[in-house]
């Protein structure tokens, strides 16, 4: 029953995504499009945390670490290769490999959930301090000067096979939006696969998953590495959207922000974190244009409100509400109310856009 409804939602999401992909550059200004590319990078980062936290139960407080590693790996290898196509591959692989190594120590060392959060956050802050201290001329990898506090300029994407054919910002937007759509549907496919269902089972009860015969540590490790690779891809998009990469990607603010997107958007769904990231990105953007209220204060209030009043997040709450309305309409009232029940759905559709 749920599968059919889910499938129609997926089709709707795909349509909205593609319309947005094609339509946005036609109607929006270039400045907005460039900004959107960054927002999409954030959404992809949120998706990666939504995947491992919402479906694998792994609360990684430093998901932005892999995002930053991906961004740095992309810039460093793009400068050294003189082209960006392989740099994207390298960035994703390096981020995934780093997540795998870190995950190995955490999962095989049987580190508990709370400490996992602490460790991942600490690793992020270590990178932050490390990269800030790389300003001297001696800190270079190949031709790439790490640049310390100031960071490095990101070479824009080029057409595969022709390093001199550099993409325009609009084209980068197409690439980013396509990457988000593909990333989303890869995640959907993953959580519907045998592997994904086992990951959910592990989230529900580790001991039972083990007793049924699944290697819990290995499954968590693989999921964590996939999440790391996805965050790395988001880092590539971020470097392209902003045009620069600085140690700030590793700071506490970004680490916390990623968690907030997922909490607000909703754990246990994939579209929730994406919407959460987009929503908060725009909220912060518009708050940035005024100076009467502090950004972080608003962000803090939003987090507190959600944790207290809607801990499930926006999307799961809407789904619950929808289910409850439908359930209450019962057999005897089904005919009369069916039409009226359409209205909340319309509200929902609006959210998807």
């Amino acid at each position, binding site marked *: 029953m749920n599968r059919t409804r889910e499938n129609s939602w997926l089709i709707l999401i795909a349509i909205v995504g593609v319309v947005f992909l094609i339509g946005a550059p036609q109607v929006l200004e270039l400045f907005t499009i460039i900004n959107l590319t960054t927002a999409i990078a954030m959404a992809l980062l949120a998706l990666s945390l939504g995947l491992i936290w919402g479906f694998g139960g792994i609360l990684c407080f430093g998901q932005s670490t892999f995002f930053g590693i991906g961004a740095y790996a992309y810039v460093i290898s793009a400068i050294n290769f003189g082209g960006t196509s392989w740099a994207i591959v390298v960035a994703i692989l390096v981020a995934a490999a780093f997540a795998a190594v870190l995950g190995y120590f955490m999962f095989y060392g049987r580190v508990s959930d709370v400490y996992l959060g602490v460790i991942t956050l600490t690793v992020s802050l270590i990178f932050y301090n490390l990269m800030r201290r790389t300003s001297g001329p001696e800190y270079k990898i190949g031709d790439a000067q790490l640049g310390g506090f100031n960071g490095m300029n990101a070479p824009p994407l080029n057409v595969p096979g022709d390093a001199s054919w550099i993409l325009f910002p609009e084209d980068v937007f197409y690439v980013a939006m396509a990457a988000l759509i593909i990333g989303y549907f890869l995640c959907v496919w993953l959580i519907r696969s*045998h592997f994904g269902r086992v990951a959910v089972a592990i989230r529900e009860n580790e001991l*039972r998953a083990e007793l049924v015969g699944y290697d819990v540590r290995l499954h968590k490790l693989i999921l964590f590495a996939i999440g790391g690779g996805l965050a790395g891809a988001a880092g590539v998009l971020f470097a392209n959207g902003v045009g620069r990469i600085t140690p700030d990607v590793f700071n506490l603010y970004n680490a916390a922000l990623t968690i907030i997107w997922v909490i607000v958007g909703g754990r246990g769904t994939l579209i929730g974190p994406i919407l959460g990231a987009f929503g908060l990105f725009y909220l912060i953007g518009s708050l940035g244009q005024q100076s009467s209220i502090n950004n972080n204060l608003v962000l803090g209030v939003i987090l507190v409100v959600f944790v207290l009043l809607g801990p499930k997040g926006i999307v799961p709450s809407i789904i619950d509400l929808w289910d409850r309305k439908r359930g209450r309409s019962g057999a005897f009232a089904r005919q009369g109310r069916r039409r009226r029940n359409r209205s909340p759905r319309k509200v929902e559709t609006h959210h998807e856009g």
Partner: protein
Amino acid sequence: MKGEIVVETRGLSMHFGGVVAVDQVDFTLREKELRCLIGPNGAGKSTFFKCLTGQLKPTFGDVVIRDLNVNHAHSHEIAGLGVGIKTQVPNVFEGLTVQENIWLAARRFHPAARARSLVEETLDRIRLTDIRREVVNEISHGQRQWVELGMVIAAEPWLVLLDEPAAGMTHEEVQLTAELIREINKTASLIVVEHDMQFIRMIADKVTVFHRGSILIEDTMDVVAADPMVREVYLGHRNK
């Protein structure tokens, strides 16, 4: 003597600090046997059970399952040998549906198509076909116990280890569970840890009584029930 030995422990001991929970236990289970482990609280049954299933690593001694020393094996590796395990507190996938629970167990050892038909078969055997789409944390305690049993059955194990499968069940449910266990015994060897004497009478073949970490006596239910030492252990010393 029935068939070959499928489970053997040699000098199995489990110490927690200074407390000796299991003390030098030598135990054997043969093919197609159904063995009940009983004993008063704190006798070491559950600790012994956890050593067998890889949830605890024994301090001394060996656990051998079909010629394989599994002392250092993880639970999932022991399960991977074809061993079905049910724990004392029902361990189920709380937020998932009944059929998803069963499917996860069936799919571990079987290709997709076979797993699907195993799910149907198992749901039928545990009589939960009607509530297959219910989320497990919303069904009754007895039904949750069956879901866990279903997960054991769906994997088609040759050895089944059950820790208090009838705990907290109504009389009727206990009877159905006993039936189910006898049915499992047709294709698998079983070790059942249990408190409920009535339930043991329904299923028991041979009974092992634990007391203070070691085996007190090992015999048929009638002999065990008549044994004065067992009575003493269960009812305490009588003041004369």
